């Protein structure tokens, strides 16, 4: 196989997670993001390769199906499962986490409602994001919102999995946008229910309350 890594220009590391390194680089003149799942020295090679291979394939697949469901996601340019690497387009924009506080109330509500719509579309398509926070959403100049990092995503139809997405999103609002968290979450639910229908949206919300009572999914902001 052609070693495509040789064609990168100025790769710069910009994020290290629990299982992957994310670089930004130029690739054949295009701005790209390279996500590489790193080998773990603590597990045996056969298992380590199997896990990274499967997850890389799954993430690429989710990115594709999310786009198909009408949710803006990065486009996968190249998939190298044997090196557990995904090359996708770099989304120029600002993280929603920072962008939100710059808006007027009305504008903010509209954006959050759109995030609700996108989340509804994901769930309707049987996709759980798994780490749905405002840090994983990029607001572009033309006003679109891209959802990124499906590393913990899954294909599922379990109500509880969907509920976890809602909990994580609400937690993210509470920790970084405390002043307007409640109003924002209401807007989110409006968008969500417009896709999934009132009945299902309520079911997921009830489940979210139940799961939250167990005192789990505590995250530090």
């Amino acid at each position, binding site marked *: 196989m052609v070693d495509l890594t040789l064609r990168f220009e100025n790769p710069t590391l910009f994020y290290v997670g629990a299982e992957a390194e994310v670089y930004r680089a130029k690739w054949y003149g295009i701005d790209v993001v390279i996500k590489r799942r790193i080998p773990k020295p603590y*597990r045996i090679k056969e*298992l380590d390769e199997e896990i990274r291979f499967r997850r890389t394939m799954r993430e690429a697949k989710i990115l594709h199906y999310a786009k198909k469901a009408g949710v803006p996601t990065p486009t996968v340019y190249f998939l190298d499962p044997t090196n557990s690497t995904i090359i996708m387009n770099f989304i120029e924009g600002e993280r929603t986490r920072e962008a939100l506080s710059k808006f007027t109330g009305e504008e903010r509500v509209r954006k959050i409602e759109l995030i609700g719509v996108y989340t509804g579309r994901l769930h309707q398509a049987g996709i759980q994001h798994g780490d749905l926070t405002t840090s994983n959403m990029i607001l572009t100049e033309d006003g679109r919102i891209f959802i990124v990092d499906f590393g913990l995503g899954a294909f599922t139809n379990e109500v509880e999995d969907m509920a976890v997405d809602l909990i994580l999103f609400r937690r993210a609002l509470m920790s970084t946008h405390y002043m307007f968290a409640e109003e924002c979450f209401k807007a989110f639910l409006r968008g969500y229910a417009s896709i999934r229908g009132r009945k299902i949206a309520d079911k997921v919300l009830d489940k979210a309350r139940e799961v939250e009572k167990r*005192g789990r999914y505590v995250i530090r902001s």
Partner: protein
Amino acid sequence: MKRLLCLGIEGTAHTFGAGIVSSDGEIIAESKSSYIPPSGRGIHPREASQHHSRVADEVLREAFNKSGVRPREIDLIAFSQGPGLGPCLRNTATIARALSVYLNKPLVGVNHLVAHIEIGKLTSKTRDPLILILSGGTTQLLGYEDGRYRVFGETLDITLANCIDTFARETGIVDAGNPWPGPAFDKIASEGRSYIPLPYTVKGMDLQFSGLLTAALKMFREKSASLEDLCFSLQETALSMVVEVVERALAQTGKKEVLLTGGFARNQRIRDMIREMVKLHNATFHVVPSEYATDNGVMIAWTGILAYQSGLKLNVENSLVKPKWRIEDTQIVWMMKNS
């Protein structure tokens, strides 16, 4: 503050134990006795509880004799109020209540899992660790947040130790002279050479082992792989799942210490794997010494002191046992003061 002495009584499952600890963290004496099920079998709750009633007198006497403390000199009595096997909890609580009334000393109910954590912190001198409890009845990943020990991840079906013990029993692995098949299983696993893919189930930070157990047993019955390779693959798969969620929690919470406890903490492979993993995150790794990692009275005594000093105590009338007591339902008052 006056130096307090606490008698702790543990009896949630197979072990009945007594420990005497002082409020400055000195472990003065301990004694315990474990119910041993017939070879190749698991714990029978009734048999275990009868064992506890039978040995209680002797175990308590031994702890007092070793300590040189007279029963009247004890300041309080703590017991394991839950979670655990109902019959065992009830017999243990009865003994603790009787002593409390007879000696006229305050009674404190302790959460068994909180006790595992607190004795771990005392013996390892850690302050705010990420805690992994691996025992016969528990597979949980916890950390202190906002007044409680929160469960970051846990098994959604059977425990890790249960998965491995059941596999060993079903495949006839026994360890002569040891009621638990763990060491014999480890030995056979160490002879395995090739890895056989088995179901690897991590959901966020939660784990599932029953599919893994079923698949491994199916392969054993179909004789599609050698027992050595199956043990090796089962162990590698199950432990990798556990270590992965520990790593994820470490990255997410930013904690800098990992504390391993529970009977399964004796397993060498899991120790090696976690030690390797924490290096990637500049964290430290601590294993609770095995006499305090398995069930014991000392951990109950120490946690009893912490609880009592925070103003928690029970009247006999409301000292009912709690077999299904969830750890996050308990406020950790003594940690709230520190932070």
